[in-house]
């Protein structure tokens, strides 16, 4: 259970939240720990997102990057790419943000019992997958093999290094980190993350795959998973589109026949195959 966000009566009305801690993860990535000024508690599913409002500047969709713990409030990991994400990334502790949500579908972890789990994340795409990884590891015995494949730009861009280390050390998982660019001091993998997929052991016929990262990386990862024999119904991707209302009213996030805010952001590949490679959707 988590603290509640927007008022239940009006999902368009942001609720006031306070920044209780700001952690600089990387040069351009910051995690905000938020707590509600007031409010009751509501459930958050791994993979859902909130709309964060930097007052006077604008509102953006940001995934929940840690969930499930009542006492810890909400965590959002934000990459500074533009006006709003820059303002949010630079909020001081004690500052106030508006928050609406949680919105959208989550990762379908509930239907995964007994299956192998394959998680493929690229860059800040690890943020929405982190709650899913933690939920799976918390009930590790319910699943078959768990494979976590993480891709980053370079060793200095590795997000959440401590949790990654803990997942690898403390749980029965096959976890690989790869980077696109490195010098000879780096002792890990070099190469794009889809290339790890064919090198790992999982039961393609009985697995669920969760993929999040830049769209090109997701497309190629999906191709690699299909190449290994995973069915498109079992490959789930988290799509990003600009958002406005986040409740399926305005059409801003339209992705083919779907609204990412309401029908997604997590979609099974079989529902979006035909639009994934369309240039303008």
């Amino acid at each position, binding site marked *: 259970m988590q603290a509640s966000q927007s008022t239940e009566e009006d999902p368009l009305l942001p609720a006031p939240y306070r920044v209780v801690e700001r952690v600089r993860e990387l040069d351009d990535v910051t995690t905000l720990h938020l707590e509600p000024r007031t409010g009751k508690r509501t459930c958050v599913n791994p993979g859902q997102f909130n709309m964060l409002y930097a007052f006077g500047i604008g509102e953006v969709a940001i995934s929940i990057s840690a969930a499930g713990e009542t006492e810890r409030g909400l965590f959002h990991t934000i990459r500074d790419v533009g006006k709003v994400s820059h303002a949010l990334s630079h909020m001081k502790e004690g500052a106030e943000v508006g928050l609406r949500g949680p919105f959208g579908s989550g990762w379908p972890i509930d239907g995964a019992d007994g299956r192998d789990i394959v998680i493929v994340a690229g860059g800040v795409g690890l943020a929405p997958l982190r709650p899913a990884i933690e939920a799976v590891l918390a009930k590790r015995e319910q699943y078959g093999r768990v494979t976590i494949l993480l891709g980053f*730009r370079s060793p200095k861009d590795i997000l959440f290094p401590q949790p990654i280390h803990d997942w690898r050390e403390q749980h029965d998982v096959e976890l690989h980190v*790869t980077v696109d660019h490195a*010098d000879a001091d*780096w002792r*890990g993998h070099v*190469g*794009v993350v889809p*290339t790890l997929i064919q090198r790992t052991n999982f039961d393609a016929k009985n697995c669920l795959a969760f993929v999040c*990262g830049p769209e*090109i990386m997701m497309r190629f990862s999906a191709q690699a998973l299909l190449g290994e024999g995973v069915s498109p119904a079992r490959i789930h991707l988290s799509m990003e589109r600009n958002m406005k209302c986040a409740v399926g009213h305005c059409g801003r996030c339209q992705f083919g026949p779907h609204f990412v805010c309401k029908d997604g952001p997590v979609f099974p590949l079989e529902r979006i195959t035909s639009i994934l490679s369309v240039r303008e959707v």
Partner: protein
Amino acid sequence: MIAAVKTMDQILGQHRFFADFPSDFAKLIGGCARNIHFKPGEYMAREEDPADTFFILSKGKVALEVAVPGKSPVVIATLGAQDVVGVSWLVAPYCWLFDARAIEDLRAISIDAKCLREKCEADHDLGYEMMKRFLPLLTQRLHATRMQVLDVYGKS
């Protein structure tokens, strides 16, 4: 009970790269193959050296590097168990295009590519089988390199 000693063609047949390879051809390649071991830091190949060998990795990890004058080498890819190191033996002038350095204790099968080239020249069916395996490998690597160049994690 004494475990049966496997012949080189049987060992090769267990590698993903040679899966379903016709057994006559596996025997021909087995004749050019031997087991090899590299310690971490040892070079399997150096840029511009004659590409008269290629390797099928059984265990460990290797970095493919490009030397940069005055700087630490840039790693362009790492390869591990079941991967193939070396494709330049197929293309004249048969020279390595990068350094290949073991970064972990490495076990591999080394294949005498000069010997294999001659066998492929003498038996085009064998040559075609080899091409059918190396061409997908080359396209996969090209594809992966394109994605690396796209720098998908950079700011758009």
